[in-house]
C-alpha cells in the first residue's frame, strides 16, 4: 500500500458504516410512521382514518385501471406550466432590476406588498374571469411560485461576490457575460433552494384548485372521494400527491448535484 492510497482507505471505512446507519434510521422512522398510522386507523375507525393496507390497495387499483396516471398527468400539466411561467418571470425580473438600484427601489416594495395577497382566496374570482378550465388554476400556481423564485433569486443576486464582477469587468467582460457566467452560476444554490420550496407548493396549489374546478386530476379525485365520505380514497389521493412531489424533488436534487458539481462535496464540509 502506498502512502497516497492510505487516507482514502481510512476514510472509506467509517463513511460506509455511517451510510448504513443513516439508511437504517430512515427505515426505522418509516416503520414507526406506518405503525402510528395503523394504530390510528384501529383506534378511530376507517371513516376517520383509512388503514394503510386499504390505502395501498386503493392506490394499486387506481394504478392498474390507469386512472391514477390520467389524474397525475392532469395535475402535472397545470403545476408544471404554472411553475415554468412563474419560474422564468421570477428569475428574469431580478436580472432586469439588477443594473438599476432606482428601479429596484420602485418595484420591490410593490412585489413584497402583493405577496401578502391570499392566492387561494383569489380562486373564485379568477374562475369568474377565466371560466372553469385550466386557466384559473394556472394563475394561482404561477402566483404561488413567482414570489418564492423572485425572492430567492434576488437574495442570490445580492449575495454575489462583487469582487468577481469587478475582476470580470477589468478583463473586459460584457454585462451579458457577467450575468450569465458569474451572477447566474453564483445564484444557482439559491435558485435550487427556491425550486425545492416552490415545486411542492405548485402541486399543492394545483390540487386545491382542482377541488374547486376540474374534471380530472389528483385534487379532483380527493374531492370526489371526500364528497362520498370515502376516506380511503382521500388518503390514496394524498399518498399519490406525496409520491409525485418526492419523485420530482429527487429529480431536482439530481439536476442540482450535476449543476453544482464544482462545489466541494458535502462530506468535506461536515459541520
Amino acid at each position, binding site marked *: 500500500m502506498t502512502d497516497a492510497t492510505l487516507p482514502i482507505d481510512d476514510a472509506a471505512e467509517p463513511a460506509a458504516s455511517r451510510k448504513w446507519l443513516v439508511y437504517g434510521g430512515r427505515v426505522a422512522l418509516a416503520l414507526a410512521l406506518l405503525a402510528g398510522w395503523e394504530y390510528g386507523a384501529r383506534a378511530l375507525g376507517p371513516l376517520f382514518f383509512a388503514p394503510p393496507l386499504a390505502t395501498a390497495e386503493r392506490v394499486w387499483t387506481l394504478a392498474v385501471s390507469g386512472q391514477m396516471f390520467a389524474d397525475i398527468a392532469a395535475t402535472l400539466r397545470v403545476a408544471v406550466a404554472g411553475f415554468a411561467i412563474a419560474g422564468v418571470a421570477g428569475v428574469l425580473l431580478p436580472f432586469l432590476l439588477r443594473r438599476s438600484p432606482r428601479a429596484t427601489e420602485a418595484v420591490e416594495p410593490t412585489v413584497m406588498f402583493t405577496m401578502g395577497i391570499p392566492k387561494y382566496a383569489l380562486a373564485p374570482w379568477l374562475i369568474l374571469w377565466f371560466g372553469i378550465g385550466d386557466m384559473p388554476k394556472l394563475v394561482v400556481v404561477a402566483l404561488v411560485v413567482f414570489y418564492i423564485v423572485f425572492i430567492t433569486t434576488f437574495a442570490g443576486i445580492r449575495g454575489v*461576490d462583487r*469582487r*468577481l464582477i*469587478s*475582476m*470580470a*469587468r*477589468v*478583463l*473586459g*467582460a*460584457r454585462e451579458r*457575460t457577467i450575468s450569465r*457566467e*458569474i451572477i447566474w*452560476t453564483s445564484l444557482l444554490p439559491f435558485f435550487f433552494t427556491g425550486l425545492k420550496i416552490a415545486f411542492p407548493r405548485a402541486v399543492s396549489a394545483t390540487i386545491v384548485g382542482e377541488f374547486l374546478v376540474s374534471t380530472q386530476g389528483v385534487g379532483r379525485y380527493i374531492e370526489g372521494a371526500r364528497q362520498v365520505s370515502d376516506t380511503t380514497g382521500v388518503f390514496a389521493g394524498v399518498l399519490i400527491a406525496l409520491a409525485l412531489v418526492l419523485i420530482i424533488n429527487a429529480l431536482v436534487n439530481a439536476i442540482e448535484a450535476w449543476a453544482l458539481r*464544482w*462545489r*466541494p462535496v458535502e462530506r468535506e464540509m461536515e459541520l
Partner: protein
Amino acid sequence: MTALLEIRKLGKRFPARHGREPSPWVIQDLSFSVAEGELLTIVGPSGAGKSTLLNIIAQTDTASAGEIIVDGVPVTTRDPRALKPGIDRRIGYVTQDDNLLPWRSTLDNVLFALEVQDRLDDTGRARAQALIEAVGLAGFERYYPHELSGGMRKRTALIRTLVYDPPVILMDEPFAAVDAQTRTQLQADLLRLWEMGRKTIVFVTHDITEAIALGDRALVLSKQPSRIAAEHIIPIPRPRNVKDIFALPGFAATYEKIRADVQ
C-alpha cells in the same frame, strides 16, 4: 524612456454618508509616472490608500481630483457610471484576493480572460498552457480552486492576467496572504515571467524587502492623505536571485534608506 502611465495630482475622498461630514482626503496631490517596461514598486504602511490608488488606476473606482494618463491619453472620469474598468484591456489588475471563479478549473479560469474578450483560439490556448507550465501548474489544469493551495491560486490569478498580455499590469499585494517560502518562490516566478516579456508593472506592497527584490524603482507612500514621500532607484542588477536578495550588494543600504522614509 516614455511614460506609459502617468498619474497627475491625484486626489480621492469618499462621498459623504447622509448626515456626516465628507470624508477626509485618502489620497491627495499624488503624482508619479511609469515608463514602458518598468517594474515599479510602491511601498506604504497599512491604510495608506494603496488599494484605493490601484482601484482608481484600474478604473474600478473614481478619482476626486487629478488625472490619469495612459499612453498620452487622459482617461479620468468623476462619474462612477462612466468608468471603464481595465480601460479596453490595456490595464491588467491582479488583486489582493485571487478572485478565481470557484466553478472553473485552473485552465478554465485562465481561459476565462480570453473567453470574455472573444479571443479564445488555438494561439490563446497554447499561450495559456505555456504559462501554466511556466509557473509549475502542469497537472493541475482540471483542479478547482478549492482543491489548490494558496500559492497555486495566486499563480493562477497571475497568469489569468498575463495570458491576455495587457500593456500595464497593476498588482495589489498579490503575495501577501501566503507563507514566506511560497512568497519568495512566487516573486522569483514573477521576475522570470517579467524578464521574458518586460511588461510595465506597478506592484504595491507593504513589504520593503519585496519592493527591493522586484523593483527597478521603489516609491514610498506617506500616511493619509497619501502622497509620494520618496523615490528610490534600486541599484541591484538583474537578473536577481530573490532567495539571496539579503546578501546582494546594495540591498542593506537601500533597505535602510527606504525604511527611514516609511512612516
